[in-house]
């Protein structure tokens, strides 16, 4: 951990000002990812702007749907009656992650911003283009069991490991963000995280200094409340990241699928929403054969690395199982 300055913000204006003044500043909320990375010497902020006193914890109905405060904890969010009732997929995804203690500390905003757990990113003696531009990608030809099978580039094969965001991609969420000049914008969640391309050092499309204030869910995402399922497949039954995860959500009319959302987690640099799988499902009867075709479509372009070929078949079967559970056929 390097020495840093600590500043406690009292409002959004002073928070964004304190952040944007220094390119090396970072916001501190729950700290459950950032502090670990600072102890590992991966993150080296010169200033921490503590935003925990900002009034951004509310979860409330809006005309457009639901607004979830960026500083609400994962636990508060997962347990909230409005979420459990209208967006149970989100509750399921959140409680699949981390541990109770971590969820009590972790905030929604921070959860969106969590960084990859790639071992080469964490090891400062290893080449990592995300951590140090141009140094190379240690995972590309290294031990890449937890690496990506979709959307990776020669510069970076890291995955985004978060569960909550994977569900948010299925629920058409938008991220409300405030700039230092006070103006707010809404970013579609599917545009929030980036693919690595040749800029792996950038995880997401936030500008420096921008503050996440809320995550918004549309009313229409409530169509999926009855038939959704978050499936997390991992080496251990708890307190572990996904090998592969699937957020599956169906809007059903009897046994016919009106709308579908299929998002794969831990297979790419961002949650992987599969328009291909969704296209297979829409208008079809919900049955295993249809789900198999959707799974094939979802993983058709998968390009495994040396140590993660198993993720392709695992991904296919996980898509099928998640859809079976979402449709209540299994």
């Amino acid at each position, binding site marked *: *951990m*390097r*020495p840093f300055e600590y500043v406690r913000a009292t409002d959004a204006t002073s928070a964004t000002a304190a952040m944007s003044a220094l390119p090396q500043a970072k916001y501190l909320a729950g700290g459950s990812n950032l502090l670990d990375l600072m102890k590992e*010497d991966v993150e080296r902020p010169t200033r921490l702007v503590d935003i925990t006193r900002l009034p951004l914890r509310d979860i409330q109905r809006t005309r457009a749907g639901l607004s979830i405060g960026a500083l609400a904890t994962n636990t508060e969010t997962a347990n909230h009656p409005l979420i459990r009732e209208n967006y149970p997929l989100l509750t399921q995804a959140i409680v699949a992650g981390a541990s109770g203690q971590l969820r009590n500390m972790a905030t929604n905003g921070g959860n969106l911003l969590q960084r990859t757990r790639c071992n080469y990113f964490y090891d400062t*003696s290893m080449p990592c283009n995300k951590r140090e531009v141009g140094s190379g990608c240690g995972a590309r030809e290294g031990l890449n069991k937890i690496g990506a099978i979709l959307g990776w580039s020669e510069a970076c094969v890291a995955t985004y490991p978060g569960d909550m965001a994977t569900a948010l991609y299925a629920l058409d969420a938008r991220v409300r963000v405030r700039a230092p000049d006070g103006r707010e914008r809404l970013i579609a969640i599917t545009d929030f995280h980036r693919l690595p391309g040749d800029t792996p050092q950038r995880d997401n499309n936030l500008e420096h200094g921008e503050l996440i204030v809320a995550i918004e869910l549309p009313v229409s995402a409530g169509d999926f409340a009855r038939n959704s399922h978050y499936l997390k497949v991992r080496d251990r039954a708890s307190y572990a990241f996904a090998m592969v995860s699937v957020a599956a959500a169906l809007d059903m009319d009897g046994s016919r699928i009106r709308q579908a959302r299929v998002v794969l987690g831990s297979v790419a640099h961002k949650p992987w929403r599969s328009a291909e799988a969704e296209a297979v499902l829409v208008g079809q009867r919900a049955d295993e054969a249809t789900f198999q075709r959707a799974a094939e479509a979802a993983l058709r372009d998968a390009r495994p690395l040396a140590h993660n070929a198993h993720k392709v078949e695992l991904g296919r079967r996980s898509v099928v199982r998640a859809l079976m559970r979402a449709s209540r056929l299994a």
Partner: protein
Amino acid sequence: MARYLGKETTRVDGLAKVTGKAKYTAEFQIPNVSYGFIVLSTVAKGRITAIDTRQAEQASGVIRVFTHLNAGRLGPAPAAGAAPAWSWPLQSDRVFFNGQPIALVVAESYEQARYAARLVKTTYQTESHNTDFSTVLDRAQPDPATAKGTPRGNPVAAMQAAAVKVEAEYRIPINHHNPIEPHAAIALWQGDQLTIFDKTQEVFGVQKHLAEHSRGVAICRWCLRCIAQAELLPVVDGDGGA
């Protein structure tokens, strides 16, 4: 023995350990203690070509930084032409394994030592390494200490004549120790008496090891005490249960 097998038995020191009352090595209160933080190699095999400690030395609270360049002789001097042993730290520029101690930063506080350790810059000339045990099995040699014994009876003939032969290969997966107690040691000099507090099952072994081999430090056994928190029950897991 059968009275205990398969039965839950409370460890005499169990309550002390889980409530934090058990005193671990680092918790002995010694006045004016300074803190050492070990810098580890980040390559598996090779040589240190340069180790730059200037920034570390200038960091707040740092008293001294030891490397193979200034640590002094520990352990017996290697025989002429022989490779330096890996078991004594900071005795040569050779790196024998990833995570090998290559420097010790000593500072007034633990945090200062730890921070300064990050400032030590090392360059290596690496050599190719092999950590795949199965590829070098054909070079395995019997341990001379145990190979000396003469067999009882005639194992070769017995095997040949046996009515039933069972041949199997058994592999043991990697075992990771998960000690409750972090590794630590405290060295307390009082005049020419040295007391070592150590996390060890073998206090007399530590005493002997340091006294006999620390020629550069000139310690005699009677001036060296080794103290470790005693185990109150027989060790069941083979690693001191610490």
